[in-house]
Every structure is written in structure tokens, then in C-alpha cells.
């Protein structure tokens, strides 16, 4: 097998190229990949079953399992097919890495041939399912900027080979685009040598992360003492309307309040479990979290069972987001995201997404140095944020919130329903407060190089991006906004769109023109 070749270290680019190049001939994977194929086939089949089970249940009722023996035979057949499916997939999978192209041939029934030039690979993820870990194998996932159809995986290669491959692939773009400048090819082969660990997360940090990212449940839990009073109130209200819960539930075994108490207790237990699960999830995915930097690459490593290694080139970062929910704010923690191109790749759960590099629950002091590493000279926490126009408030309150509130309270007053009136007014007040907070938080500012946007309601989010990376700019103005000389600016980045609402018309156009100019005059690639 070819892989042994890769394990010898060397420091010249020719050697490196050679060491990852598998030559002209197609390679088979390491046999351990059978495990992976079997596991993923079973997973796929299970997902398929979720849809099929209802249909199966109905049809089995219709036939009333007359042909039980057939069913058993089918079941046995299925299980055996599953168990050899991995083997078959293994025999049908070939790959080669040749001439700076990754090529994969796979698929049993529908064959796929993927040919992926290094320079189109935007990201490379190394994963280690737990069954790969004893023998130090890894799974390499290539992400392209194009469609998800083109995503390729090399299912089982030795970890060291995977790391060399990653280094080579990610170095390739800079080699091909700027041949004269600093040479990644002199990069030492030893992966630890150049890497600087920028950030580590302790277990305490991860527990905090688990708790802060499950805030709905915690909110409900904190409100638990009031449930009883609230439920009494609701009950009385329902009864005053001639609707008695006692009648509905019946006086069978327990009084309705006992039932309520049981439900409440059960709810609290469920919530505690969910919070625990959330903490468990945070530990599972972020255990041993390190963020390190090797020249212009960021590398994230984490994971308890399945180790994951995601790397991202610095130039690919489109936007940095510092998110703080209200609970984060109370604890002084920030979730920092390095976001890159999301188009083409399917939506993935945030934690695992290779498109968003998350640094979970860091302290506020840690934010600025990390951001400055990726976007030198940026000042996300500067005091010069300009707030958006008060027209934002008059639009939302005046058109969407207050008229319905007046209408509803008018109706309530007319029918002399004072309780309902109180509820309507409270809801209106909460909505108003949220809207005012939203307006108050929303702010923007820019400097020579960057644009900063601040937003949030109770929490606070900061976004920061480099001007020349914009993809498209839109200025929206309704006829009413035009009269008041305000406009909304929508900025499209490869990582998604950003809106700055209701800024003075002149400001909006100034910023829009500056962004377009930056994108068009800079010859730098946005990738």
C-alpha cells in the first residue's frame, strides 16, 4: 500500500508533493474503511426507515402479516445486505491524488467520478470517528465553493497522510496565486513546529457554554415557582368563561391541582435533563478545544469521542461575529465565529459546520486579540457606533405594533373585558421594549478597511468584515422612507447578508459606494 510512503518526513516541496501524490494508479482505501462504510450505510438506511415505517405499518396491517415467513426472510436478507454493504462499498471505492487533483471513484449502483483540483478546494476537514482512533486513521472531507454535489471524501487514510495532504492543499492556493511571496513550501513538515496555540477551552468554559446555549430551558426553569400561581390564574380565568378544567379532566383520580403539580415536576426534571444534555453535548464536541494558527491558517481541534480538525485559511474568513446572548452577557462570555463562504454547501449544524469556526464562550478580554489576529487593526468594540434613525422605531411601532394594539384594546374596552385589556397592554409593552432595545442596539461604523455592525435586543452581537469582500450591495427605500430621507442598506457577503436598517440616506449611499468601490478597485481575491 502506498501510504507508508507518506509517513517519512521531508522538507522540500517536491518531496511533499511526491509524498501525497499517489501516482497514476488508483488506490484502494485502508480496510478499516469497511467499518466506516457499514456505519454510514446503516445510518442512511435508518434515516430512510423513518419515512418508510408508517407506510410499512399500514401495509402490514392490511396484509395482517399473512406471510410472516417472507417477512422474516426479508429481515434476515436485509441484515446480511447491511453487513456486506460496507464491504461492497469498500471494493467500489478508489481514489488517487495526482497532479494536484483529488480524484474519487465511488458508488455501487450510481457511480460517481469526482475530480477536484486543489485550487478549488476551499476547506479541508479531518475527522476521526472513535473507531479510527486506535489505529490513527482519519477521514478527509473536501469542501468546494461550488455545489454540494462536488463534495468529496477520502474515507480512510493514515492521520499523518491526511495532515500532509491538508497542508499541501491549503498551501496550493497561495502558491499558485502569489508565486513571488513567502513560501509555504518551506513550511516544516512537522505539524507542531509552526503552530501557535491561540486559545484553549477548559472544561469549566465548556460547561458554561453548554448552559448558556440552552437558555430557553433555563428561563423556564427559573420561572418555575410562578407556574403554580400562573396556572391558578389561568384556571380561574377559564372557569369564569364557563370552561372548567375539572369537568374536562373529570374527578377521576386526582384533583386538577395535583395533576398540575405532577406535570410541573416532570417539566422541571425534563428541563434539568436537557440542560445536562446541553452541557454533555458541549463537552462531547468541544472537549480539549484548541484553536491554533499556523502561518495563515487557523486550525480547530476538538472532540471527546470523534475528534475533529477543521482548518480555515485566514484569507477565506469573510466575517467575524461576536455573539453575546443575555446569559452570556451576565456571565461576561462571548461566542466568536469566523465565518467563511457558505454558498453551495448544505446547511450544517452550527457546532460542526466547517464554514463557521466557533470559539466557544471566551471572555471579553480574549475577543480583541483573536479578532486582530484575523483582521489586523480592526476595532470591534470601538465607541463610535452610529445608531440607526429613530424612523426605524416609528416604522415598526407606528405600523406594525401600535395600530393592532389600539384596535384590540378598543375592542376589549368596548366589551369591558378588563383582564384581556391588561394582557394586551402587557404584551404591547414587552413588544415595545424589545423594539426600542433593538433600535438602541443597532449601530454601525466603518474605518478605512472594515465595516462594523452592532445589533441585538437584550444580547449584543458584533459583526465585522473587510470592505473589499462584499459580493453585492442593495439600498432599499420605501416611498415613505424617501420622504424622511432614510434608507436600508443590505450588504451581501459570501458568508451571508447583513442589514443596516434606516440609516440616513446620504450615509447609506456613501457606505454603499465605498463598499462597491473597495470591491471593484481591489484586485485581491475574496476567497
Amino acid at each position, binding site marked *: 500500500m502506498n501510504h507508508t510512503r507518506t509517513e517519512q518526513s521531508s522538507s522540500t516541496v517536491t518531496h511533499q508533493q511526491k509524498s501525497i501524490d499517489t501516482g497514476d494508479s488508483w488506490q484502494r482505501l485502508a480496510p478499516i474503511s469497511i467499518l466506516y462504510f457499514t456505519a454510514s450505510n446503516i445510518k442512511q438506511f435508518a434515516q430512510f426507515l423513518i419515512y418508510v415505517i408508517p407506510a410499512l405499518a399500514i401495509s402490514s396491517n392490511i396484509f395482517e402479516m399473512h406471510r410472516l415467513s417472507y417477512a422474516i426472510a426479508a429481515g434476515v436478507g436485509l441484515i446480511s445486505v447491511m453487513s456486506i454493504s460496507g464491504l461492497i462499498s469498500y471494493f467500489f471505492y478508489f481514489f488517487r491524488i495526482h497532479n494536484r487533483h483529488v480524484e474519487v471513484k465511488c458508488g455501487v449502483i450510481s457511480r460517481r467520478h469526482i475530480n477536484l483540483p486543489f*485550487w478549488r478546494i476551499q476547506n479541508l476537514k479531518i475527522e476521526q470517528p472513535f473507531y479510527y482512533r486506535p489505529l490513527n486513521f482519519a477521514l478527509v472531507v473536501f469542501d468546494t*465553493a461550488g455545489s454540494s454535489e462536488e463534495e468529496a471524501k477520502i474515507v480512510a487514510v493514515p492521520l499523518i497522510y491526511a495532515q500532509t495532504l491538508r497542508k499541501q492543499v491549503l498551501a496550493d492556493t497561495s502558491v*499558485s496565486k*502569489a508565486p*513571488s*511571496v*513567502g513560501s509555504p513550501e518551506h513550511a516544516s513538515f512537522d505539524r507542531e513546529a509552526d503552530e501557535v496555540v491561540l486559545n484553549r477551552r477548559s472544561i469549566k468554559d465548556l460547561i458554561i457554554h453548554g448552559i448558556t446555549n440552552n437558555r430557553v430551558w433555563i428561563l423556564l426553569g427559573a420561572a418555575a415557582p410562578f407556574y403554580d400561581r400562573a396556572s391558578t390564574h389561568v384556571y380561574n380565568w377559564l372557569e369564569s368563561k364557563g370552561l372548567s378544567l375539572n369537568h374536562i379532566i373529570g374527578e377521576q383520580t386526582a384533583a386538577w391541582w395535583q395533576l398540575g403539580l405532577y406535570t410541573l415536576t416532570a417539566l422541571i426534571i425534563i428541563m434539568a435533563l436537557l440542560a445536562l444534555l446541553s452541557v454533555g453535548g458541549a463537552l462531547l464536541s468541544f472537549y480539549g478545544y484548541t484553536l491554533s494558527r499556523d502561518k495563515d491558517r487557523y486550525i480547530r481541534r476538538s472532540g471527546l469521542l470523534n475528534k475533529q480538525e477543521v482548518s480555515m485559511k485566514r484569507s477565506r474568513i469573510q466575517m467575524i461575529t461576536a455573539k453575546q446572548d443575555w446569559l452570556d452577557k451576565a456571565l461576561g462570555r462571548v461566542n466568536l465565529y469566523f465565518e467563511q*463562504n*457558505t*454558498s453551495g454547501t448544505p446547511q450544517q449544524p452550527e457546532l460542526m459546520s466547517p464554514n463557521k469556526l466557533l470559539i466557544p464562550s471566551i471572555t471579553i478580554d480574549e475577543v480583541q486579540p483573536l479578532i486582530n489576529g484575523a483582521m*489586523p487593526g480592526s476595532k470591534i468594540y470601538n465607541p463610535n457606533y452610529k445608531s440607526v434613525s429613530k424612523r426605524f422605531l416609528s416604522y415598526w411601532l407606528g405600523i406594525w405594533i401600535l395600530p393592532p394594539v389600539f384596535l384590540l384594546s378598543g375592542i376589549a374596552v368596548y366589551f369591558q373585558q378588563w383582564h384581556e385589556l391588561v394582557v394586551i397592554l402587557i404584551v404591547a409593552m414587552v413588544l415595545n421594549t424589545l423594539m426600542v432595545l433593538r433600535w438602541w442596539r443597532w449601530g454601525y461604523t466603518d474605518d*478605512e478597511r472594515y465595516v462594523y455592525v452592532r445589533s441585538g435586543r437584550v444580547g449584543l452581537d458584533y459583526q465585522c468584515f473587510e470592505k473589499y469582500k*462584499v*459580493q*453585492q*450591495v*442593495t*439600498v*432599499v*427605500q*420605501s*416611498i415613505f422612507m*424617501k420622504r424622511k430621507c432614510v434608507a436600508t442598506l443590505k450588504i*451581501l*457577503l*459570501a*458568508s*451571508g*447578508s447583513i442589514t443596516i436598517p434606516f440609516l440616513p440616506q446620504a450615509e447609506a*449611499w*456613501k457606505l*454603499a*459606494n*465605498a463598499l*462597491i*468601490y473597495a*470591491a*471593484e478597485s481591489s*484586485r*485581491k481575491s*475574496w476567497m
Partner: protein
Amino acid sequence: MKIDDFSNEPVVLSQLPDAREVETHPLSPRYRIVNLATVVVVFLLISIGISIVYFQPWFPLPEPVRAVYPIALGIVGFISGCSFVYHWLADPRIRYAVRQQDLILHKGLIFRKVTCQPILRVQHIELKRGPLDRFAGLAKIQVFSAGGSAHTFEIPGLPIERAAQLRQFILDHKELDAR
């Protein structure tokens, strides 16, 4: 940070090109006609369909269904009317402009949108013609950038020759994707 092609001259903001001051061009007048005709035809087809069901002599309809007939006709008529008025007013307001470095599109009736798409950021272009477009000799041009298909820049209702010209102009842009 690579410095070779980097310069940092101060930019005079007041001298930046302004996307508002560009002369814009209207779409083909056939675009509005096609849209209005489509609305009318769809309205007629649906109302005739409903009426046939209502007046046919072969099987009797239950009373509640019969009662719904005028309401259904009213709703279809209302929606078609709104759509007709919208296209009547909004279609002439779609205007586009082409500069050396970008494409600009104005559209919207109440919410006026001005979108600017730098050509440097274009990933690929599509020229699309539906059956109606082909019938009217029109085409629409779609320009894709990174950042999601929801934000695809689209100029509808172009005469086919103009659409092809535009496409070629964008493809010929010298900076477009070197590799």
C-alpha cells in the same frame, strides 16, 4: 499579509463614483405586456374552470360548494386585479444600468430597491428563457455571486440580443475569475 499588490492611498469619499448617478435603461416593453397577458389568461382559465364545474349538468353539487362559487370567483378576481395593477405600475419601474465594473438594477413599487453587483464578484452567468419569454423574444439574465442563491442578481425582460450582449460583456470582463 501579502504586501506586493497592496497600496493604501487615502480615498476621497466625495469623489467615489456614485451608483445613483448612472443613467438607467428600461426593460423591453414586451415584458410588461407578457406579464399582464399572463395574469389575464390565468384569471380566465381559473374562472372558466370553476364556472364549468358550477354550471355543468352531469352531477349535482352539494349546496355548500355551490354557495362558495361567487366567493371563489371574487377571490380569484381580486388577486388577479391586484396582480394586474402591480405589474401595470411596477414593471416599467424595473430599470438597469451597466457600468464598466458593475451592474445596477432598480426595482420595486413601494419598496424601491437599488442593487449593485460588482462584475468582479460574479461566479457564473445564466441566460434563461421560459416558453413565454421565447414566444415574446425575451430573455432574463441571472448573475450568481457567492452568498446564497436567494440573492441572485436577475435582470428580467431583456430583448434576446441585448441579453446575449450583456452576457458577453460580463464574460469578457478581464478580471473575471482567472482560474
